[in-house]
């Protein structure tokens, strides 16, 4: 079940390659930023699932609004002659790092849990004097 998002990601990449259509004009340049926003949202979703406070409505609206805000911020920055592009990239990049580190911690906790559980079971099954 865990792997379904990854599979979906690769299916998406394959679809994009099949589609093989560059986004014309200025929109194409903000798409990169939207990608970073999307990546942040997906990782945020995984994280919230691990934290058991997943809410599909919050997640989906977050994905859409983050993407649009990143798009708009990049556009606004070019209009007023300030590189807001970088501001958005920096913040979203930082959030991706945070999300990934939280996910990593939960993964490690889970592994340790499993190991401890196995050891306890082995002890239960083993013959001989119990401590």
């Amino acid at each position, binding site marked *: 079940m865990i792997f379904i998002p990854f599979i*979906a990601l690769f299916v998406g990449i394959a679809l*994009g390659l099949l589609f093989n259509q560059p986004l014309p004009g200025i929109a*194409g340049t903000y798409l990169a930023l939207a990608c970073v926003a*999307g990546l942040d949202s997906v990782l945020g979703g995984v994280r919230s*699932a691990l934290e*058991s406070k997943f809410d599909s409505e919050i997640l989906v609206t977050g*994905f859409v609004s983050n993407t649009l805000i990143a798009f708009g911020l990049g556009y606004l920055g070019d209009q007023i002659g300030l590189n807001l592009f970088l501001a958005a990239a920096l913040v979203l990049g930082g959030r991706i790092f945070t999300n990934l580190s939280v996910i990593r911690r939960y993964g490690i906790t889970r592994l340790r849990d499993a190991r401890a559980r196995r050891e306890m079971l082995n002890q239960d099954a083993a013959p001989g004097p119990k401590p």
Partner: protein
Amino acid sequence: MNPFATRSSGYQWIWPTSAMALVLGVMLTMAWITAQTRQSRFSELPTDVRDRLNSASLDFQGEYFKVQQELKSLRESFGELREENTKLQNAVADQTKSSQLLNESLQEVKTFAGLTEVEGPGLMITLRDAKNAPEGLGDYAVIHDIDVLKVVNELWNAGAEAISVNDLRVGPHTNFRCVGSVILVDRVQIASPVVIRAIGDPKTLEGALDLPLGVLAEIRQVEPAMVKTERVENMRMPGFAGSTKPKFMKAVPPKG
């Protein structure tokens, strides 16, 4: 906190997240394909926005080019006027013996100061950027203002009487500077090849420059073809075309 304490959410997060991952995959690929096919973000912007973002540097460059052109033409007319001045001085001096003597010493001073066109034997040095410099030498493969300055300095030391750089006469206040990739001689742009000509004893001048570990040896290390020296029997060079009017200094009258 145990992350597995509540299992109420189960696997319900899988499907929305997967759907988003799918969209993200498509977006990533599109961004990648777009990035492959475009040059830069700037080229996609509407022209007026791009101009505004660039305007400062563009304005400056255009203005700078105009000023350079103006400077060049002004210098030319300056030289002509100075020649006219000499003619008038000679005409005035024809009248009496004393004014003739006075004029002779005046012309001598003018020649010494480099204000008149002069001719004589000398040395011609051509410095040019390296064409086949070894990789990674970068900065050393280019002729810099400091190279020109060193050569000119060495020529003065070797007894040169008049020096010109790319037909710009080196006067009392002449300076060599570097802005970006161009060398400025008295604020006039020059570029490789730099032709330095000096009037003096050709043998002495050449010997001074060819000293071991001398100024040219350093450049020749990068590529021998960067430097070419040539003895010349007779050459002409223009007078100094900059301003000579002092703003602050005054001659102190002789005592007594």
